[in-house]
């Protein structure tokens, strides 16, 4: 992957996720692609974003090639301006101080509900995944939630096996009716498309597709049929600069597969 016109799926996902990040906002991220995307955006169009980690870390400055392997370790906390107790970080969010968050997921459904808990039954799972961590809290009260995941049929399922992190639940006004009166799923970014949610039904909606792919490829990698925007935009592939900077952040390819 040394040449700039070639890139891996995770590099592509990191670049497209970075592009979804707005400057001058507070941004809650976990380790992996979301963190790389934040670090990349910081070096490009969003130099003034403030990164927040759930371990109790506000505004750290991550050192390239010293990437944290969890959201609560010294690599994540380096040069942070505030190191509050963990509950406080979530209170800041519940209060409205966190503008954006990026979460991943093993399964995502048509209403943006995310599963990181179990594949199969909860009481006797086929696969016991690590669990919510702060993802449920983020999805419950962060102002704008970005879901970032690879575009695969096994991930984009009709119904998640377990709602770890709520999206629009069963669509229409069900999120609000459940008591989730703050925060909303904002975008879904994959390595093929950028999606949002239909204003009325809250069904996932394809807004843009990567140059060179047709909409049918995007749809055939999903187990449900999303709404398709009237004018689907074209996403430009990663630029040389984006890839170069991204690879400088993770030179050991700890997170870039």
């Amino acid at each position, binding site marked *: 992957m040394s040449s700039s016109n070639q890139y891996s799926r995770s590099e592509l996902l990191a670049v497209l996720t970075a592009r979804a990040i707005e400057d001058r906002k507070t941004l809650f991220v976990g380790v992996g692609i979301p963190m790389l995307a934040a670090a990349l955006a910081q070096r490009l169009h969003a130099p003034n974003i403030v990164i927040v980690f759930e371990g109790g870390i506000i505004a750290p400055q991550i050192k390239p090639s010293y990437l944290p392997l969890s959201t609560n370790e010294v690599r994540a906390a380096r040069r942070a301006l505030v190191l509050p107790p963990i509950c406080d970080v*979530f209170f800041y969010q519940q209060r409205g101080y966190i503008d954006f968050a990026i979460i991943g997921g093993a399964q995502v459904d048509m209403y943006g509900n995310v599963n990181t808990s179990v594949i199969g039954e909860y009481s006797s799972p086929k696969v016991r995944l690590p*669990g919510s961590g702060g993802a449920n809290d983020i999805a419950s009260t962060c102002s704008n939630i970005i879901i970032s995941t690879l575009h695969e049929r096994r991930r984009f399922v009709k119904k998640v096996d377990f709602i770890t992190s709520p999206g629009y639940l069963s669509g229409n006004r069900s999120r609000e009716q459940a008591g989730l009166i703050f925060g909303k799923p904002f975008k879904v970014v994959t390595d093929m498309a950028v999606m949002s949610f239909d204003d009325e039904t809250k069904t996932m909606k394809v807004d843009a597709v990567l140059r060179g792919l047709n909409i049918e490829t995007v749809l055939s990698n999903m187990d449900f049929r999303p709404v398709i925007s009237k004018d689907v935009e074209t996403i430009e592939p990663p630029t040389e600069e984006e890839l170069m900077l991204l690879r400088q952040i993770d030179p050991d390819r700890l997170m870039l597969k």
Partner: protein
Amino acid sequence: MTLVDVKLNRRKIEEKDKSLRPKVMTLKEAVSRFVFDGAVVALGGCLYSRTPMAAVHEVLRQGFKNLTLVRNLAGYEVDLLLASGCLKKLVASWCAPGYAWGMSKVLRHYVENRLAEFEEWSHLGIGLRLTAAAMGIPSIPTFSMLGSDIEKNNGLKHVECPYSGVKMLMVPALYPDVAVIHGSRVDVYGNIQIDGYVHMDREMALAAGRVIATAEEVVNEEFTRHSGDRTLIPYFCVDAVVEQPFGAYPSECWNLYDTDFSHMNLYQKKVEEKGVEGAREYIQEYITGVDSFTQFLEKTGLEKLFKNRRSFRDVIE
């Protein structure tokens, strides 16, 4: 959902001796006095930051059964407690060793084969359960977990806020029988000071019926008399004071030492190759096969400990 017994748990604290008295003892004594079969044990720190590993080792050596572990984000210590047969239930928001090593094979084996239970809450959910207990109230409201299967699975209840009409989820208090906190320093009475991020240690100590404080250093009363503003956990919560340098190793301790990733790799390699059996081999070799945590540190070697001290500086600078 078991009903929360706020009165019983209040009485436990009312009955405690709150006098200022020295509580310094060995780790062996602290663990044998305050941990028991079937206990609900909370561990301070978060994932591989300030995990009270020395106490975990002592629990394994004394071989308790049917423990329930309460933690916010849990990892390698859960593997050890499961593989040694100490743990029947984990109450946490997340469990895996850390990003580099993927999912926990040991946790998967135990939970997927229904040999142990993993009761999942959100991260704030765990924090609020401890906060409610710490505040002496039976439950506390939040918007987290509303509408999710975490809510359904744990049978959580709602209220309509009487002042705003807003629907809120009520998180039940959680009272661990014993919490173990690893501090930067503690005085002989049990006043705990923690440098760097404090995670959920304050809430956890106040929520628990009994608290074991291990720390890098035990200081005298005079020290705390001049630094009370730095005391996070008051002495009256604490029942045992144990000096244990490098007591969080191989996890990190703020300002003092970094995580020993090479030791984590060594453990993970065994699990990668042999699954649960690999974890048991590790326990035999490094924990039950030695007499004390200090012997374990000797086995891993001074050079490594010094390297982890240097490494923390390298990251920060």
